């Protein structure tokens, strides 16, 4: 494991001494209290990571955690490079979406392991190597005064909104790819949905935040984006609203996994598991994300949620993207 990110003021490395009684009810599977250092690779946003680490440091004062945070692409590139030279330097991987985590799983990089909090995670949101920690919801965002107000995904192909729709490029973000996977594999929509979007003059933009920005600024009227992003903008005062699709927001979960190669399995599992505990989940929820546990209060959810079958779409990755590109170009 590599040394900790002491440069960052995040409390992650602050290991307050002598809080031996701090072992909570929900402890690690190992009998002895975990200690030592731990390296976490993650693509989860910085504020969330900070919050969780702060909470973890209280619960497990003897473990100091180093964080390497980068966008999924860079994170994967780093892992690829490290695998080519002396092995991955991380003990725990906390991803934004299942896609890349799944790839590593299929390459047997992870420890098969069941957290103490196993019951907290709905079956749809975990495999036997990685476990969902939060939910990102792909929803519809529209600007003040847009009529007719959208209510469901089908409204994005409503001629009334012809040429006024923005969607995120699934070639760059896993969550966007999740949406692609969901639509493509659902009987209700199918890949034709994207064809229809294109027909209706929808435009692809690179990133999910970009959808919100362009809608908020009036370049487009409505688009596909994440609920958290939209909520933040609305809170700041942007003239946009969330339309929670009646047929269900596409829920993408952020998985956590423990590397097989970890030299501190106890600490690694304790952290991974901590993300699923009430404390961990509360920290996540406090930064605006929907927790995976329903017994932890999170942001208000405006409707039903549907989840793509990640196993299925993982195998069709290439094909799905090719189909998509044949429609939207690039």
């Amino acid at each position, binding site marked *: 494991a590599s040394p900790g990110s002491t440069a960052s003021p995040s409390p992650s490395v602050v290991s307050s001494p002598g809080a031996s009684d701090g072992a909570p009810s929900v402890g690690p599977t190992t009998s002895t209290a975990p200690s030592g250092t731990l390296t976490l690779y993650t693509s989860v946003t910085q504020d969330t990571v900070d919050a969780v680490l702060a909470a973890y440091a209280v619960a497990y004062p003897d473990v100091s955690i180093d964080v390497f*945070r980068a966008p999924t*692409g860079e994170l994967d590139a780093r892992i*690829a490079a490290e695998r*080519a030279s002396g092995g991955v330097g991380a003990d725990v991987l906390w991803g934004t979406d299942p896609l890349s*985590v799944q790839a590593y799983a299929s390459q047997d990089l992870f420890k098969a392991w069941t957290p103490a909090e196993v019951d907290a995670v709905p079956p749809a949101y975990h495999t036997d190597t990685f476990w969902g920690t939060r939910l990102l919801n792909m929803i519809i965002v529209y600007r003040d005064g847009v009529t007719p107000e959208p209510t469901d995904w089908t409204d994005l192909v409503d001629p009334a909104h012809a040429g006024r729709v923005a969607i995120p490029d699934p070639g760059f973000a896993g969550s966007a790819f999740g949406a692609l996977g969901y639509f493509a594999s659902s009987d209700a929509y199918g890949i034709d949905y994207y064809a229809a979007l294109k027909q209706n003059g929808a435009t692809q933009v690179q990133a999910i935040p970009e959808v919100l920005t362009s809608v908020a600024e009036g*370049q487009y009227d409505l688009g596909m984006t994440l609920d958290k992003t939209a909520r933040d903008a609305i809170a700041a005062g942007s003239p946009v609203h969330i339309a929670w699709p009646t047929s269900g927001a596409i829920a993408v979960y952020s998985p956590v996994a423990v590397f097989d190669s970890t030299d501190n399995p106890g600490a690694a599992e304790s952290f991974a598991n901590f993300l699923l505990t009430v404390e961990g989940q509360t920290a996540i929820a406090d930064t605006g994300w929907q927790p995976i546990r329903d017994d932890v209060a999170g942001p208000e959810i405006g409707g039903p949620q549907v989840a793509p079958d990640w196993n299925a779409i993982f195998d069709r990755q290439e094909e799905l993207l090719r189909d998509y590109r044949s429609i939207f170009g690039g």
Partner: protein
Amino acid sequence: MAEGSRWRATGWVALALALLGIVAWPLFRLLSTAWGAGLGGLAAAIGTDGAAAVATSLWMAIVVTVASVAGGTALALLTERSAVPGVAWLRAGILAPLLIPDFVTAISWTRAYGPVGITARLTGVELPGLYGPVGIVVVLVAGAVPLAYLVVAAGLRVRSEPDLERAARASGATPWESLRQVTLPLLLPVLGAAAALVFVTTMNAFGTPVVLGRPAGVVTMTTRIYQDLAFSSTPEAFARVVALSALLVLLAVVTVAVAGRALAIRGERTGASAGPVAAHAPASRAGTGAAWAFVVLTVLLPLLALVLTAMTRAVGLTPLPPNLTLAHFAAALDARTVASLGTSLVLAALTAIGAVLLGGLATAVASRRGSGPVGMMVLLTFALPGSVVAVAILIAYGVTLRDTLAILLVAYLAKLWALGQRPVAAAVSRLPADLARAARVHGAGSFTTLRTVVLPLLAPAIVAAGLLVFTVAINEVTISTLLYGPHATTLAVSIVNLQQLGDPTVTAALAVVLTAIVGLAALGLLLLRRVPWGAAGVGLG
């Protein structure tokens, strides 16, 4: 030449080691690794849409190179060869875009000229085709002009030969003819250097093509590479990343090499000195006007747009007093950013010094021009996309240097060596050999000669090269996002963190702050009378 054979020998050794450690070894490790991961099927990796990406990247790079070198040269001739009022400010204005990260540049343009941009709101006029090839080219040109300008201006300053142009005029050549037939041919090595740098930079551009290109479905090699990078969790994707990058490097280097042949300077400088240098004639009003117009349109307006974005409370609100706030600046300048800013400044400074030193070394011992084999070698890693450079360095030195400033420095040097070398190498070809000889014969060793004669004369080019490397290093994002460690958190990391939070206003605020900081430094440098501007600096009246 019987000059300093011992120095040369040591120089060669040092150079060889540097090339091996910084360029050759990482590249080798990268390729061998990718080979293991199935780089063999390169053709398959590229595929048909890949071919399209290659074509797009190439024609865009060529157009951008031609346009921006032309523009940069015109501006350089204006500021260096004629008396322009307030020239220092003009220079600063022209160079400002160098200080803005490329992804921010694109955003600032959309906010200035986009469908909902400033001009659209105020005058209803928008830049047609901003989202698409036209827009990409325009924005890339605007970003590349300062690079070309800096290189050419430095070259012009290293030696002025007014008599050569006068001779053409006296022979009946119009100003335009003498420019085309005398001034420009004599600038060839410098133009070549500028073109090479711009071309490679453009082939490497990611921020602009992705922001302006995705909506129109335009794919360049870099966007393709980044998409594969986003899925590089699978070995195939990773191999594809390397394969495409290798192809990109190949294209870039071959093109530069071929063009280099064509641009190779003919005829070296003779000792005959220039005649009396009279004060420059005042610049034509049209020329000055055009230059300022360029600055206003491609620099000030986008910058203004950026500032407004940064000061608007939330995206989508009209930037009017009730909606304006400075909060985003506070958010942008949290403790982490400030801490990383220090690291970045140090790193950029070290890189600038290192790259210029290495460039100088290569120039001194290897080829007097940049297009020699050494020049080509350093171009390899320059042409490699930042993310891939980082990967290569990580593979080569990850085990030993991971998470240290050192690994970042090595990566930066690998990426920017060429930027420090070309301008200097090109400028050298403008110096007559007799100047160094005069020093040697009157008692100066080859090192003293370098210190007391060559370097002072090359000062403009060296300053330019250093400035270039510094600004690029400060704005570099991908490399450090991949390589940063606890003791080396750079500004780029903070920028990306903010970006991922999804609020463009804060990112804009940070970009503005960054531009302000580096801008002030650079401006100070430019306004300084003391900058050693070399031979042409005298007699400017």
